[in-house]
């Protein structure tokens, strides 16, 4: 849904552009935020569609539970809508909504403490064709005997052993592909802290998954 287009009431300039250029104009986040502030539900709906997958994925990788992720992603967007008037625009909407999601998830995990109940999603069909995955299951290592779903369970189990902040950094960097700077902005810490957390988290994961990394 990322990159979806909208045709709300256009300004004359936008209409002129549409007449001459057949390419649909993608409305910026800033415009959508302004419209959503004026109680334009469709504008906020579009913002949700743009970021729902990334926000859901972040929360899911943190909780390893689809039901919890579903509740938290809804809470995040509902809170985002309510707090939209206090959004000053110092950062992008994307960073801002991520920050809400991160704080909500960390608070939830602190309350949940050690009551970990994994409810893992299925792997898509591309997983078996992914070169990295093929390499993982075909090499002559102990992991060879494992199927992809067992490997997925081991990996999620290891992730759950990390602290919330370390898990978040690994999720945002190694799974979501965000830069150190973006993570620092989202987690409200400096780049050095992000780097050190990432290094420590990877070391821990390496120790926990040593059997599958030989």
């Amino acid at each position, binding site marked *: 849904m990322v990159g979806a287009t909208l045709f709300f009431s256009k300004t004359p300039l936008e209409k002129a552009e549409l007449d001459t250029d057949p390419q649909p104009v993608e409305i910026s986040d800033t415009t959508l935020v302004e419209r959503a502030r004026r109680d334009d539900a469709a504008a906020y709906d579009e913002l949700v569609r743009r970021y729902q997958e990334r926000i859901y994925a972040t929360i899911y990788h943190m909780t390893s539970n689809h039901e919890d992720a579903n509740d938290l992603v809804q809470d995040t967007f509902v809170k985002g809508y309510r707090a939209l008037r206090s959004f000053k625009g110092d950062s992008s909407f994307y960073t801002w909504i991520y920050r809400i999601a991160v704080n909500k998830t960390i608070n939830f995990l602190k309350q949940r403490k050690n009551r970990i109940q994994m409810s893992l*999603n299925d792997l898509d069909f591309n997983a078996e064709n992914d070169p990295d995955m093929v390499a993982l299951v075909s090499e002559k290592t102990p992991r060879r005997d494992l199927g992809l779903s067992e490997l997925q369970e081991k990996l999620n189990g290891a992730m759950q052993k990390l602290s919330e902040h370390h898990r978040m950094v690994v999720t945002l960097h190694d799974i979501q592909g965000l830069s150190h700077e973006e993570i620092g902005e989202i987690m409200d810490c400096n780049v050095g802290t992000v780097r050190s957390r990432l290094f420590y988290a990877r070391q821990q994961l390496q120790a926990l998954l040593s059997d599958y990394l030989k």
Partner: protein
Amino acid sequence: MNPEQENFDALRKLMSLKRHEIPPPGYFDHLPRRIATRIRSDEGAPTFWEILLARLRLNLSVAYAFGLTACGVLALGAVYAERVEGVRAESQPRDLAVSWSARDAAALASENAPGPSSQLHVATWSGQTNPASPAYQLPSLFARPLQPVTLPTAYEAAH
């Protein structure tokens, strides 16, 4: 590339498995509608303060009862404290009051006393430790001479 980095690369390859985890089919098609429904239902829902005010309004009699009870407890406390103070004052020994006043005078005397060199002529080394005794000399003119306080027991007889 150092071995540590290489190992991290292996880990990152393993982590990429998580990118293939997907929610049930059609989940993202329904999510915006669910969020919109929640936003609409929350807009109509009363806030915390509204709920609190509504509850207070409903339980007005409880609030009155609580206020009256609190006032009653306060009044009882005040009456009880007054009585206790009265009993204490009656039962307090008078000697205690005398000894306290004597102690205060001694403290006052020691404060107004000159330095040790000029105090040598004062005959306070008589072994007398009672500052209320007549043998005790006050070093200051401003201090009152100490006398044991005796309260008349039969006031009319003195006249």
